[in-house]
């Protein structure tokens, strides 16, 4: 009764067992008229720009799931190493896992060489992994960092191609952000000018693209210093309600009032903070 696959040891990694079942389910579901659940994407505007002594990475903070905003304040600038950070667009889980794996590998590599990791190493590792999976891992990344050779900025596409440029944009809002860059980018800018340029580019993406929104996060990387500004600018604050539909006390007349005291004792008191942004 056991098939040949039972005799061999199981390998780790991706398992394609359920692909046929998923294909069958998808055809059945579309016949009925429903839709399969969509993966959470990051819609997004992510940008990077090189200035005189370093580079600035910027990202918006909206995560979408189909037509719904899944997370109003997600963090899209991921840590790779103390001198290298990476912004991720595309499927949220893919960017998260890819950057974490590359960060671990780079840490092991740098412990083995005994030196600070270089941006070209991270780029090569990411490129080889994404090409291996032929674009099925939907991660479009903007990788930037400062190493012994100066500041470097790379854009990495889901199929594994990379570009090394002084300014890059990725994501659904990339065209709006690139328009701002093409207009105002200059070589060897000062840090404040670069931060303002990135802030304006992300704002262009936020206000003109449905997939991007909420706040603007910035990450400034210079030699020996990284400023992770989250949030740098709250472009979209939730409004305050001007009208109140509640009835005032005394609108309905009170006929009788009876007070019953309940004897309760406090057994345990815990505080749990919630992210109510």
């Amino acid at each position, binding site marked *: 009764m056991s098939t040949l696959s039972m005799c061999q*040891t199981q390998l780790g990694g*991706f398992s394609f067992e359920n692909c*046929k079942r998923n294909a069958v389910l998808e055809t059945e579901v579309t016949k009925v008229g429903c839709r399969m659940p969509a993966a959470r994407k990051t819609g997004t505007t992510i940008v990077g720009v090189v200035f005189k002594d370093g580079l600035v990475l910027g990202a918006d903070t909206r995560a979408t799931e189909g037509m719904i905003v899944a997370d109003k304040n997600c963090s899209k600038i991921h840590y790779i190493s103390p001198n290298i950070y990476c912004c991720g667009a595309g499927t949220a889980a893919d960017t998260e896992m890819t950057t974490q794996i590359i960060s671990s590998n780079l840490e092991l590599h740098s412990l083995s060489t005994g030196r600070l990791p270089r941006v070209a190493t991270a780029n090569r590792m990411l490129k080889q992994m994404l090409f291996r999976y032929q674009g099925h891992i939907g991660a479009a990344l903007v990788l930037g960092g400062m190493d012994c050779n100066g500041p470097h900025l790379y854009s990495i596409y889901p199929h594994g191609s990379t570009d090394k440029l002084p300014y890059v944009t990725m994501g659904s809002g990339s065209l709006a952000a690139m328009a701002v860059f093409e207009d105002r980018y200059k070589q060897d800018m000062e840090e404040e000018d670069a931060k303002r340029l990135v802030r304006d580019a992300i704002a262009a993406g936020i206000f003109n693209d449905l997939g991007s929104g909420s706040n603007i996060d910035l990450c400034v990387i210079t030699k020996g210093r990284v400023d992770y500004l989250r949030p740098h600018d709250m472009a979209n604050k939730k409004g305050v309600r001007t009208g109140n539909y509640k009835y005032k006390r005394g609108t309905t007349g009170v006929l009788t009032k009876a007070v019953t005291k309940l004897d309760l004792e406090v057994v345990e008191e815990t505080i749990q903070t919630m992210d109510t942004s």
Partner: protein
Amino acid sequence: MGQHIGAYGVQDTLRSGFSSVKNELLPSHALELSEKNFQLNQDKMNFSTLRNIQGLHAPLKLQMEYRAARQIQRLPFLQSSHLALDTLKGNDESISFEDILNDPAQSEMVGEPHIMVEYKLGLM
């Protein structure tokens, strides 16, 4: 890729769809075949490059060491650490999806011991 034999010994329609010749021959995902042979292809490529650069002795020596290290393991149905093999291949300094997803040590199904040992010894 064989059909999944479900309960009662019949074809498991829910998990692997209707049984047809096309279903059995074609891979279920574009990456299935390339992932199954990825490690083999990488090794082949590396050995042939090594042979071109350093001569035949280099891959021969390495493959002899791999063969020796591969023999240091428990019986097939038990989990072995493959420590020597991993160190030789350089896998002890990298993490990839093979280490995170579907870890064989955490698998919920255990192989049939007798059949697995017979298969390994070539008696099947």
